[in-house]
């Protein structure tokens, strides 16, 4: 008897899934789709982005919404899996009928969702992914506000001699992001006449990097570039200290959350440099100081962890961009929103957001030029580097 009820229950769940369509109303909210890794290995980052997106939504709605309509976020979890990212995109586009999406965090998740964008003609604002191919594939529905690794490396170029980098080693996570960073930064170094020493990778889930660090120790380099998520950076800093690897450490990618590093790595973080795209410690120094400070304050008011700010701002900027495009388009229709995205010219928490053409002619994607900053951990606090 119980068995029958279980089968019945499952059937009910599926029926619920088929769902009744929502009737369209003129005052219906503007829905914006959000695809992020909310479970799985990188759940922390995905959740920070979500928190930032929610702040943007609430601010917009407090000011009256977009074209008189409230903004509603439809949030889907891509479970850190590209297949799920594609399914989430399909669901958002087809069932929720969103005019635009923000996502999908990791480059392979974004790449997996991209065919759906072309299939249905819906634009997506990419807020974190760094792989160059995303904007070079000729997908005219992609608009990226995060910097590809090449752009980030160019942002470092003016500081190479000031930092005194002569021979650098690389320790990167074995994903498209890590590999892309190694190539991009390596190229910039070589352009400036410096050399690249040892290049080591580690698995995303690895916790023990002592083998790699031992090799790096023996390389004779003066700088170590580290590209990975904040948890692994913490472990690397601690293990580097244990193994007495004493050299300048520069983290790239913007997700290094120096505050968290100080908290968890303690003295091991001292002296390290970090390339970030948002400086929540000195919001007034950001291009739009007022907005940045307001964001930091709101984040704190909601009780979100301070460490998350270095990633969470992306969620805000992505939603702000889409909302502005809907406003310019005058309606929440995907193609109109896409065309309007080219006209967007606003100030986000990171700085100005304006898209330039990127990729093969006729099918360009949009790429904005985000601001890039470098900070240092000194005396247990985050500070601007002294040479600046």
């Amino acid at each position: 008897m119980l068995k029958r009820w279980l089968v019945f229950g499952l059937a009910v769940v599926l029926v619920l899934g088929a769902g009744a369509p929502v009737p369209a109303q003129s005052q219906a909210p503007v829905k914006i789709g959000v695809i992020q890794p909310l479970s799985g290995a990188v759940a922390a980052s995905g959740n920070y982005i979500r928190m930032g997106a929610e702040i943007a939504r609430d601010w917009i709605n407090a000011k009256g919404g977009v074209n008189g309509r409230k903004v509603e976020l439809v949030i889907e979890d891509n479970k850190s899996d590209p297949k799920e990212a594609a399914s989430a995109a399909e669901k958002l586009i087809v069932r929720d009928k969103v005019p635009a999406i923000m996502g999908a965090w990791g480059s392979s998740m974004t790449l997996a969702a991209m065919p759906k964008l072309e299939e249905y003609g819906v634009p997506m604002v990419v807020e974190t992914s760094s792989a160059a191919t995303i904007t070079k594939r000729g997908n005219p529905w992609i608009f990226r506000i995060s910097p590809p690794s090449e752009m980030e490396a160019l942002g470092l170029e003016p500081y190479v001699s000031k930092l005194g980098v002569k021979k650098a080693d690389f320790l990167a996570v074995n994903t498209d992001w890590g590999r892309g960073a190694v190539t991009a930064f390596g190229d910039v170094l070589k352009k400036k006449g410096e050399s690249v020493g040892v290049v080591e990778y580690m698995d995303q889930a690895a916790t023990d990097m002592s083998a790699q660090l031992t090799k790096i120790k023996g390389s004779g380099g003066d700088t170590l570039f580290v590209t990975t998520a904040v948890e692994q950076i913490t472990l690397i800093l601690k293990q580097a200290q244990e193994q007495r690897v004493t050299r300048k450490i520069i983290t790239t990618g913007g997700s290094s959350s120096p505050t968290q590093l100080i908290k968890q790595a303690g003295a091991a973080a001292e002296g390290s440099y970090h390339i970030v795209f948002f400086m929540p410690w000195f919001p007034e120094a950001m291009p739009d100081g007022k907005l940045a400070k307001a964001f930091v304050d709101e984040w704190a008011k909601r009780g979100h962890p301070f460490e998350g700010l270095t990633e969470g701002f992306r969620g805000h900027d992505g939603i702000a961009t889409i909302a502005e495009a809907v406003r310019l388009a005058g309606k929440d229709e995907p193609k109109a929103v896409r065309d309007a995205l080219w006209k967007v010219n606003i100030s986000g928490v990171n700085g100005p957001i304006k898209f330039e053409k990127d990729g093969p002619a006729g099918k360009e994607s949009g790429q904005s030029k985000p601001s890039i900053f470098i900070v240092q951990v000194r005396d247990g606090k985050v500070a601007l580097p002294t040479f600046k």
Partner: protein
Amino acid sequence: MRARLPSTSLLVALAVVALTAPFWLTNPYWLHVLIMGGIFAVLALSLNLLLGYTGQLSLGHAAFFGIGAYASALTTLKLERSAWEGLALAALLAGLAGWAIGRLALKLRGAYFVLVTISFAGVISLVSVNWMELTNGPLGLPGIPAPELGPWSFRTKRAYYYLVLAAVALSYLVCRRLVGSRIGRAFLALRENEALAESVGIDVTRYLVLAAVISAAMAGVAGGLYAHYTRFVSPEVFLFTYTVTMVIMVVAGGKGTLAGPIVGALLFTALPEALREVTSWQWQMLTYGLILVLLVFFLPRGIVPTLSRLRKSP
């Protein structure tokens, strides 16, 4: 114990429903779910050959799936051949890998075989991530073309649905013929009592290897179908979660039956998507885990065997 065959009228009804689905399913999202469900059905049927019929649990099946996906993707991208050749190569290479595993199984049974298959999948996974020249590593292979047949392209969902439906039907028929034949009976003898089977002259190793090859080749084809549908493969196809999902589909659907894996595949493809609708993202995976536990508790034999027993009981 012969495989229970559903009644003819039921089969006809199902066929009609399946063939006309793209026309009455107005929402392309559900067509997407059916396509993914179909691909997993082929996978589940392949795993069922090993698990349900020979009694060997392969937890590395994602390896065959992934090998097939990459083989087909690379054939169309790098070798610039048609998707059909890609699918054929997928079956071939995956089958070859299956042969290797089958030979390994010569010495091992039960838990040890399980662990070898896990390890095999683990090694292949790491190779796909690290061997940049071949697989493009973590960056993956985007832009895989859809299959074409003369002037028709299978790009549209509707067309792809029929392709996958054909694959599922073909897989089902292959399995049914295999199970009903002498080979199938040998599988069952192997599963029930290996020592006894050997003593009556059944060449156990030969049949195990055969089962492994066919099973792997089918999984490889499923991988190829996946690659040409999602148009993007990355090392995540080797994730353990894919294997876990397959196992769930087979065991919950009913291993050792032919309809079970198909039912399991459809159910467990639809379930996570249904959970997207019904629960907010925080609770989805937790609910999924709990449903799984409940399912095993209440339907330990799997859905299809339980249903047919209910049907038979007065």
